[in-house]
């Protein structure tokens, strides 16, 4: 008996791999039909935050060199626009239903990530991660304010409500050669 279970045990010991499948979940935009012209949607400049990553993995946010560690705070400031700054996205009032009620939020903000062909995958993922983290933190703050619970503890409908206040808008451009030779 013990021999057989030993055998099985060793088999599972060998085949086991503890790594769980986890990753940064993203959603790609639907493909553009070939017959459709690419229209340049006119985005108001104040609603747009451009994050560029060059081939040396350096970050440029709104025309300024920035460290990736500061990106989260910068993104949060941009998405929230707490003080109705004229250089940050326009605030729009909308009713989100109980218990959030009528709140001002930056409806049309867009964060555009542009990377070089030679950008390292890790650097790209760092940026994506920080932006997602900014949204997650804001949603969590919102959940705590109105539901007195963390975002993860809310049920599905409540999460959707919170998502409406902070809609995730990260757009990705086709990679171009920035800062190349």
């Amino acid at each position, binding site marked *: 008996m013990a021999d057989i279970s030993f055998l099985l045990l060793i088999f599972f010991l060998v085949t086991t*791999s503890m790594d769980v*499948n986890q*990753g940064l979940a993203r959603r790609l935009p639907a493909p553009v039909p070939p017959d459709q012209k690419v229209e340049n949607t006119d985005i108001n400049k104040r609603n747009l935050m451009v994050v560029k990553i060059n081939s040396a993995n350096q970050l440029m946010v709104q025309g300024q060199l920035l460290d990736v560690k500061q990106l989260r705070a910068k993104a949060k400031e941009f998405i929230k626009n707490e003080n109705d700054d004229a250089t940050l996205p326009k605030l729009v009032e909308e009713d989100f239903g109980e218990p959030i009620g009528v709140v001002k939020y930056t409806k049309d903000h867009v964060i555009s990530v542009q990377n070089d062909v030679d950008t390292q995958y*890790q650097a790209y993922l760092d940026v994506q991660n920080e932006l997602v983290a900014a949204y997650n933190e804001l949603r969590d703050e919102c959940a705590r304010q109105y539901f007195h619970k963390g975002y993860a503890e809310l049920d599905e409908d409540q999460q959707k409500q919170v998502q409406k206040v902070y809609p995730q808008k990260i757009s990705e451009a086709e990679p171009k050669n920035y800062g190349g030779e």
Partner: protein
Amino acid sequence: MAKIRRNDKREMPALNTSSLPDIIFMLLFFFMSVTSMKEVSYKVQFKVPQATELVKLEKKSLVRYIYVGTPTAEFRKQYGAETRIQLDDAFAETNEIGEYIVNERSSMKEQDQGLMTVSIKADKETRMGVIADIKQELRRAYALKISYASTQRTSF
């Protein structure tokens, strides 16, 4: 009067092993429950990048993987050291991804087809050009739910 005898040679009793199977079984069940079989044998080697905002991939049957990395030592002679893509058990070109996705999707149950997730397991040193090509290919194949496989970062 009884004499209390002192045994100079006291022998150690044999270790009782009757509970050994129970212990082994317990270990066995532990490993059985945590085990997850490797999906394929890797032909490329990669170290996935690190991130913090991780989401676990539920439902293995809905996930398809794309491996990106440099060929392992045994394939290096044949394929060189350039970054390559692996689908299932074979090397593939970028333009084969679309077909692969369509095939995999059609083999799923109909109600599950919209829930398919593609997990990109790429080496952290990969150039973004490769990843961007894959993403374009996935978009074309309407595989829009993707996940960049990564490990938990403990410190910045």
